[in-house]
């Protein structure tokens, strides 16, 4: 069983952290992953930086730009992650835009992920129909779970379709926004979380965008399986460095 599916069976609200590989320094990747696991994080999204990240706000874009300047590439990331499964057990997901993956070759990329022990991919600009027609069998052959996004604007019919071709979890974007653009949830979000929860989908939902502290984590996970923190974590390591990640995680979990 894929580590993601196994993790989703645990009777707890899951905390997932996004970080940009190669930021703040090129070779921070492995240490960040190991420290976050030790700090009690349940799942990780490793951002493969892209020059033109359309769905991201200024925080993640700036970290991506810096990571690329530091020399991060697909090949470098794979090399850094080569032995990651000797020390790390939690599910690892690579989040990246489609063009770098397309240039590497989708088949080769999935194969490499499987070799390393990457469990899933999130590719925000890979259209669902293109995935379904061209790449689903490739992903499945290499036991890579593809995670799709839904937003408050996604129609019920489309959510059902996404649920039908997903085999891990659904990434619920909390509001119409890019990453890192809001703080706190209002009534509209709670209604949306509840509405999706009532749809009784086969895949659990994990909320992303807008989660930055223990309050928003609790709100986001009241009706869902877990939540993802990205921009707030990037801001934290920008300010405090990568030495004391436990402190950040502790303030979320308290």
């Amino acid at each position, binding site marked *: 069983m894929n580590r993601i599916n196994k993790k989703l069976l645990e009777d707890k609200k899951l905390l997932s952290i996004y970080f940009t590989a190669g930021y703040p320094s090129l070779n921070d990747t492995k240490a960040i992953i190991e420290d976050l696991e030790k700090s009690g994080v349940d799942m990780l999204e490793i951002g493969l930086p892209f020059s033109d990240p359309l769905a991201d706000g200024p925080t993640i874009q700036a970290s991506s730009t810096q990571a690329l300047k530091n020399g991060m590439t697909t090949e470098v990331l794979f090399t850094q992650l080569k032995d990651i499964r000797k020390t790390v057990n939690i599910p690892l997901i690579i989040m990246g835009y489609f063009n770098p993956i397309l240039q590497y070759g989708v088949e080769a990329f999935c194969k490499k992920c499987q070799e390393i022990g990457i469990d899933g991919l999130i590719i925000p*600009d890979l259209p669902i129909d293109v995935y379904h027609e061209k790449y689903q069998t490739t992903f499945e052959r290499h036991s890579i779970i593809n995670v799709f996004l839904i*937003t408050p604007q996604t129609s019920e019919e489309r959510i059902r379709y996404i649920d039908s071709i997903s085999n891990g979890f659904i990434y619920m974007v909390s509001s*119409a*926004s890019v990453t890192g653009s809001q703080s706190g949830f209002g009534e509209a979000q709670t209604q949306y979380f509840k509405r999706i929860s009532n749809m009784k989908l086969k895949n659990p939902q994990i909320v992303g965008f807008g989660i930055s502290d223990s309050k928003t984590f609790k709100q986001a996970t009241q009706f869902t399986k877990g939540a993802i923190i990205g921009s707030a974590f990037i801001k934290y390591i920008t300010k405090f460095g990568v030495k004391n990640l436990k402190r950040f995680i502790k303030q979320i979990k308290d």
Partner: protein
Amino acid sequence: MSYNINERGYYGDFGGAYIPEMLYPNVEELRQNYLKIMAESEFQKEFNQLLKDYVGRPSPLYFAKRLSEKYKTKIYLKREDLNHTGAHKINNTIGQILMAKRLGKHRIIAETGAGQHGVATATVCALMGLECIVYMGEIDITRQAPNVARMKMLGATVIPAKSGSRTLKDATNEAIRDWINNPVDTHYIIGSVVGPHPYPDMVARFQAVVSEEIQWQLHEHEGKSEPDYVIACVGGGSNAAGAYYHFLDNTNVKLLAVEAAGKGIHSGESAATSVLGKEGIIHGSKTLLMQTNDGQITEPYSISAGLDYPGVGPMHAHLYKTGRAKFLSVTDEEAMSAGLDLCKLEGIIPAIESSHALAVFEKTSFNPTDIVVVSLSGRGDKDLETYIKHFKL
């Protein structure tokens, strides 16, 4: 073989809508409605009326006698430079503002590089009384101060794009992000035949008026409605798409696409996407784009801000791959000299973008009986400073 878009939004292998889910409802709303709305007779009536009374269409198809004598062939200039706001860009913004109104949108966003599309968008927003926000790279804002002032006078808010390389591609990213953040009330007026489907097709259809006019105007001049060649410059490719549109499936008409070679194709400072680019995804579309081996989008360069884009529209990628259009590239130097030539021979100061198309005559010879139509996509007023610097005027 058809060179037009198929029902799934692709030109051959190129096109589609490679967009994050956050954009899906906006793009899908447009996709479901654009052809229906464009087919409405009320829409057509209003569009054509505005093109006539406001833009000043039809733009002349002018037989350039002295230029023809110099190059020993028959050269016609399609005078898009005479349109209101000085370029072909307004054809598209008129169409899209009418589209936005019918979709019930009251906030308009746009990206701009040199500022031509930004001015054309600000213009139609003023005309319709709609809020207008234009994203422009911080570097371009300083380079193109007069156009920034124009947009402000027309009531638009100009927001600097401070991310990445702070030029056109980043302005486009920012506009897309704005659309993600404002999915309900906002329409995004893309300025070229780029972006996710249906944009490339919609913009091409609004620009198609150019080749529609060429057909009947040429008939008046020559008694036939098809030229032997159509030449146009290609940045994203909207003026070329318009000039080619009605000739796409008529292979008697040879299509020449001119890209900006900047300081030389292999100088590292170029925007010749067909030569330097590879297939990939940019701004939601599968097409040819300039990128690193690792799939990071690289910065193009051209003396002409309108050609300074790292991709081409998917229609052009298809025309290139199938060989339907022949792609040529022209350096800064060659374009500037062709521009000055047109001033002296015909009394027309062209935009530097259009000068790239004109530079083809120095590189390719045509038969004396050939009818060659050049898309003179814009006028050179906006480029005066560059001309002054270049020729030390």
